[in-house]
């Protein structure tokens, strides 16, 4: 049935079109209530489905948030316990170090104080006793002046007085000198006492500082055990910071590992062949990578044996003797691998020289004279080959932090993703409700004429039956 044949139902195409329009309007008008019902039901169904999805996502998000909090709090609790334990160990060491010498200290102080007391007693001022000539003066003063024997007597007394004064002055000076000597001897004792008391003061201050630090850590620990929002927020941000810092350090370590691989991949081709491939990777590169990974593993075990990291609790729980042996073995393997790498780095230099000589020969030129400073490059390569494995040992520390914080970060990302999805679904759900209403209105547009006639027929006061209204519109 073509469009032209539709226009041929009447001799006049205009009339045919009008007829079709009227017919169409009539069909749409008659099917209005059913069409409204279908549209609204469809949109309502989509709205309900999306609401169900939102509820499911909300429940999942809650579980994820709770699980994330549990993980955070557990990790925070463990970290805090280690810190507090470490602080107590430090305080214990400090107290042992300082108080072990306390009896000697007390004895030294007591001796110093005793010496000072003795010296002080010796240095006490003894007022000179008044001489007997004072009484003689009194007696002479009472003598009669008319007597002729007073003159020589007074001269004799004057002479005695002068002698006595000289003797007293000398005695006074001697006593003063002795006193000053004693006081001077007290000075070092005072200084010693002051120094000792200063040391004691510093030790006490240090202990007080540590005890304040422990107080702070313990209060944070109590918050973590109680699971407060503040502690969760602090742990989350701390975990994020640690994640980024450890990721940065790991990126640097990966760079170091790549340099290491470049150093030894070429000589490895001599051992495993230069053209064997596994997938798109050369066997020589994979062999070099395996050596690097073994070195990193040995470093990891060494760190675990030293109890610096705790990725493998089994190793930390080993008996001390076995742990020390493990330490020695892993270090020996690491040393051997580092030596092998240094040798391979030297081999690389030789191979490079060989290749350069071959290229020069093929180019037709004479072999280029070797620079006298080439030994620097060779030594640098060997040094790097020997040092990089030991540097990679420390990658265990950021690796542990990265692994521990990754769980939290992934959880946070998951929560964020779920919230975003929930928002999108909620918006879509709301959009479908309004879309239903809009579609109903759009449906009525082509049949405006019969609707107008109906409205005029029923009268302006009559309300149209709420057929096809959405639940959102009907429900208050």
């Amino acid at each position: 049935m073509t469009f032209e044949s539709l226009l041929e139902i009447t001799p006049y195409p205009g009339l045919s079109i009008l007829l079709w329009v009227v017919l169409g309007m009539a069909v749409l008008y008659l099917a209005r209530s059913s069409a409204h019902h279908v549209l609204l039901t469809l949109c309502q169904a989509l709205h309900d489905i999306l609401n169900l999805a939102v509820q499911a996502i909300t429940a999942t998000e809650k579980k994820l948030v709770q699980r994330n909090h549990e993980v955070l709090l557990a990790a925070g609790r463990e970290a805090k316990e280690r810190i507090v334990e470490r602080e107590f160990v430090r305080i214990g060491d400090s107290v042992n170090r300082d108080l072990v010498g306390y009896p000697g200290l007390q004895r030294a102080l007591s001796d110093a104080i005793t010496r000072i007391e003795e010296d002080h007693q010796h240095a006490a001022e003894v007022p000179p006793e008044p001489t007997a000539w004072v009484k003689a003066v009194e007696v002479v003063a009472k003598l009669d002046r008319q007597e002729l024997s007073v003159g020589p007597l007074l001269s004799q007394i004057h002479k005695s007085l002068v002698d006595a004064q000289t003797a007293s002055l000398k005695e006074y000076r001697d006593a003063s000198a002795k006193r000053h000597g004693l006081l001077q001897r007290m000075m070092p004792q005072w200084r010693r006492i002051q120094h000792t008391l200063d040391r004691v003061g510093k030790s006490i201050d240090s202990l007080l500082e540590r005890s304040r630090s422990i107080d702070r850590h313990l209060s944070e620990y109590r918050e973590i055990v109680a699971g407060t929002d503040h502690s969760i927020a602090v742990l989350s941000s701390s975990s994020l910071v640690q994640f980024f810092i450890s990721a940065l350090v790991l990126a640097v370590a990966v760079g170091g590992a790549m340099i290491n691989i470049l150093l030894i991949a070429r000589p490895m081709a001599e051992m495993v062949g230069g053209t064997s491939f596994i997938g798109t990777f050369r066997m020589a590169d994979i062999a070099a990578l395996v050596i690097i990974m073994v070195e990193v593993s040995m470093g990891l075990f060494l760190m675990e044996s030293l109890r610096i990291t705790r990725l493998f609790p089994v190793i930390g729980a080993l008996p001390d003797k076995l742990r020390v042996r493990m330490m020695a073995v892993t270090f020996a393997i690491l040393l051997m691998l580092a030596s092998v790498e240094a040798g391979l780095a030297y081999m690389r230099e030789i191979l490079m020289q060989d290749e350069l000589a071959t290229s020069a020969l093929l180019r037709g030129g004479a072999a280029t004279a070797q620079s006298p400073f080439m030994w620097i490059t060779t030594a640098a390569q060997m040094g790097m080959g020997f040092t990089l494995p030991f540097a990679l040992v420390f990658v265990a520390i950021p690796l542990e932090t990265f692994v521990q914080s990754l769980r939290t970060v992934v959880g946070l990302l998951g929560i964020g993703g779920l919230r975003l999805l929930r928002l999108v679904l909620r918006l879509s759900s709301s959009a479908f409700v309004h879309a239903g209403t809009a579609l109903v209105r759009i449906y009525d547009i082509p049949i405006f004429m019969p609707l107008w006639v109906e409205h005029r027929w029923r009268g302006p006061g009559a309300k149209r039956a709420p057929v096809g209204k959405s639940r959102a519109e009907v429900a208050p």
Partner: protein
Amino acid sequence: MKHAMNNRAHRSLAVAAACIASLAVTSCAPPEPRNTGVYLLLDTSGTYHEELDKAKQIINFTLSRLDALDSFAVARIDTGSFSERDILAKVTLDDRPSAANQQKREFASSIERFLDDTPKSSHTDITGGLLQAVEFLNEKEPGRKTIFIFSDLKEDLEAGYVRDIEVPVEGFEVVALNVTKLRSDNVDPREYLDRLEMWKRKVEAEGGTWRVVNDLDRLETLL
């Protein structure tokens, strides 16, 4: 709860086992060869014999570009080139880089001797040389097959030699090097262009790719 955890554990194990199995299957499949095979045909006829000095440059360049397990053969184009006796030197480089370098040095010095000693040929059988090249490289089965033709591409067959046959160069890359222009080409350039066009059609009709490189200062595009 315990039952649900067991079920989850079993499912995880099943998924992991499936991944490992698929990895094992894919890794057991024979890998595609990645090496290169190069066959260089040297025209030793007439005046083109004087161009052989340039051929040394191409040989050395090719050697410098080849890697471990690559194959390289140098053969001459003479009266009847469909013969192993025309192969002046051939080598398949060792897997170890140091041994490969040693082989390159030895090949370069031996080929120089051969080129100095090789006589001029009276005829030019390029098609025979191509057929020999195809046979050689198909036997080596490299991942990439390349034939260099160091010639003016003017075929001159001796009477009785049948070369009106297709050369199966599907999957081959054929590169014409230093296609010098003859005196007659200068008189009528259409001869030169028709000659190039003829070889191009011949190679491409059999599924090969055709290239012409005349500038020997820009050999980087060869390999």
